[in-house]
């Protein structure tokens, strides 16, 4: 049921307008049909009433001996007249008040005085008394209107008159007209809806693709005026955002350069500092500042780096990194079963992410066991340490920039606080994720999942 209900604005609008229009049209149709049927009946009854009044007038004006002849003479072509002691219409049984009024008016107009008029539909027409009336009626089968007028004491002039059959095509014609109107309005609605939908879809697509890199995405303005204005505004905003991001990049580049130069100067001068213990500490501080500066610049630029994606053997990339740690004497190893896994990646960004994760594992857990595995939808690089892990409620928090577990700000354990944030940003730049979890057998597992 949920699937049947459209989610989009345009779909909902079309459905709503279509539905409301359908209901309105049905009500309209019913009302018109009712009116037209009444009108049609009135038109159909007109001749019968006039004929009855004429016969009544002839009857009243004829000499007494000819009166029966008048009735007999009139009883043809779908009509029977008779003079009876009782009304052919019962006192109370489906009487047609409107017709009775019109009959009374017609009688009065013809100079016939009637004390009471009754009218009702029903009954059959008795066969024609005259043989010549055996020829078929012109309009057979229509409802028989029975009119009865009391024209004297205990004398009722009863007339049975066939009325034309109501137009059988009336309903069909009316339904066809209604349907045609419905289709025209619905077609116009759908036309407007699609005219709105296409530019809106373009706009949404451009907003989704917008990565802040390179040339700003421009959507061609089309559709109604206010939509064009929205698209123009989006394009302008896009350009402003790209300009701002470019400015940010330039500023970061300038900061990086301007801070590195005095750091480099300090680093050179530090070489002359005595005693050696002091020199070692100064050099360590300068290197820490430089590493933090580097991390900040990388994180600030993440998502906007201009590195191209290339097909890379990710296992070899991880293996080369692991090898560099081993050469430095760190306890880092790659799963022996790791096989060649080719993926389109940004190798430098990925290398930095994996390096940060291995750094953390070595720093907090003393060692790093790295594996590269392909699951159905992702290539997973998992780094497990032998440390104490992280409290479950802190797992998400440590991924945030500048998050630390220690209160200490010492470089030995604290770091810049950006390593995991950079690794996560790198994963997201590849459309992947970074997960942290405590392994059941102890230690923290960081899993970098890249969509395969």
């Amino acid at each position, binding site marked *: 049921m949920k699937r049947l209900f459209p989610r989009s604005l345009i779909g909902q609008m079309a459905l709503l307008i279509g539905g409301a229009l359908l209901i309105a049209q049905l009500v309209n149709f019913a009302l018109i049909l009712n009116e037209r049927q009444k009108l049609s009946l009135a038109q159909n009854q007109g001749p019968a009433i006039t004929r009855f009044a004429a016969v009544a007038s002839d009857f009243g004006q004829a000499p007494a001996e000819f009166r029966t002849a008048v009735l007999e003479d009139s009883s043809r072509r779908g009509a029977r007249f008779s003079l009876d002691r009782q009304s052919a219409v019962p006192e109370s049984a489906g009487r047609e008040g409107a017709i009775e009024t019109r009959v009374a008016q017609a009688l009065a107009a013809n100079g016939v005085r009637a004390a009471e008029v009754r009218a009702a539909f029903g009954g059959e027409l008795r066969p024609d008394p005259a043989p010549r009336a055996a020829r078929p009626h012109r309009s057979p089968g229509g409802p028989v209107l029975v009119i009865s007028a009391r024209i004297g004491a205990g004398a009722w002039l009863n007339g049975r008159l066939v009325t034309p059959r109501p137009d059988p095509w009336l309903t069909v014609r009316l339904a066809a007209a209604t349907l045609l109107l419905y289709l025209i309005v619905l077609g116009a609605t759908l036309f407007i809806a699609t005219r709105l939908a296409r530019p809106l879809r373009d706009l949404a697509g451009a907003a989704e693709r917008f990565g802040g890199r390179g040339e700003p995405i421009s959507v061609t303005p089309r559709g109604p005026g206010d939509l064009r204005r929205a698209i123009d505004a989006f394009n302008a905003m896009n350009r402003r955002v790209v300009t701002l991001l470019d400015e940010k990049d330039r500023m970061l*580049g300038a900061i*990086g*350069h301007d801070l*590195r*130069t*005095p*750091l*480099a*100067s*300090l*680093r*050179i*001068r530090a*070489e*002359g500092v005595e005693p050696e213990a002091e020199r070692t500490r100064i*050099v360590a501080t*300068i*290197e820490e500042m*430089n590493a933090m500066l*580097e991390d900040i610049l990388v994180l600030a630029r993440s998502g906007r780096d*201009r*590195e191209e994606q*290339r*097909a*890379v*053997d990710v296992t*070899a*990339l991880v*293996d*080369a*990194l692991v*090898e*560099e740690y*081993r*050469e430095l*004497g760190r306890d880092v190893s790659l799963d022996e079963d790791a096989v060649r896994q*080719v993926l389109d990646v940004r*190798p*430098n960004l990925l*290398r930095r992410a994996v390096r940060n994760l291995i750094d953390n594992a070595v720093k907090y857990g003393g060692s790093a066991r790295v594996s590269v595995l392909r699951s159905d939808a992702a290539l997973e690089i998992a780094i497990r340490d032998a440390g104490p892990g992280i409290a479950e409620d802190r797992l998400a928090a440590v991924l945030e920039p500048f998050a630390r577990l220690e209160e200490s700000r010492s470089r030995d354990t604290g770091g810049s606080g950006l390593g995991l944030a950079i690794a996560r940003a790198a994963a997201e730049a590849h459309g992947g994720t970074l997960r942290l979890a405590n392994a059941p057998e102890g230690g923290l597992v960081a899993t970098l999942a890249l969509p395969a």
Partner: protein
Amino acid sequence: MANEPHILLVDDERDIREPLAAYLGRNGYRVTKADNAAAARQVLAAHAIDLILLDVMMPGEDGLALTGFVRATSGTPVILLTARAEETDRIVGLELGADDYVTKPFSPRELVARIKAVLRRTEGSGKSVHAPDADGYAFGPWVLRTGERELVDAGGVAVPLSTGEYNLLLAFVTHPKRVLSRDQLLDLSQGRELAAFERSIDNHISRLRRKIEADPSDPKLIKTVWGGGYTLAADVRRL
């Protein structure tokens, strides 16, 4: 004192230029300073320079442009000083023919070590033999790309190498079909980078074979020469 190597130091930052010149002077080098590319050209025209230390980011003509000029006109080796760590700078710098680079802030001791390494390589010839003298080397089904410092297979897939593996493979492709002893390999592969080979050459050879040989237990590319060392058995084409 004429034996002192003569270094031209080009940097627009006085805070770098002065202390670095002083440090190099203390370490046995004769240093001439220049604060822009034009001044550097004048010095190059007037003196016999053994090595140029060149800042990349300078107002006006920058270090990369000057590297191109130096490479086009002489064989003087160049070490770039860069404040930008981005890989692209390194690639562009090395493609233009810089012999090495250091990222600011750098350790002055490491810089001196690199100066020594570059001078040792260029000694005698007086020419820069900046190690990757080609964009890449094709051998067997592989291409070793010097810009990105990686191995690319026939299908275009990049196979990243560790620094040690890259340097070792570079030694092989620049000396194809020559038997290289372990000492020669150590010397050749340590020339550019100071990454210490704590583990043996044999270990690196076996790692390389795992990456490039179709069957590492029956190597067809890097062959062992009994008693002599190793040799790259494939033809190498410079790209």
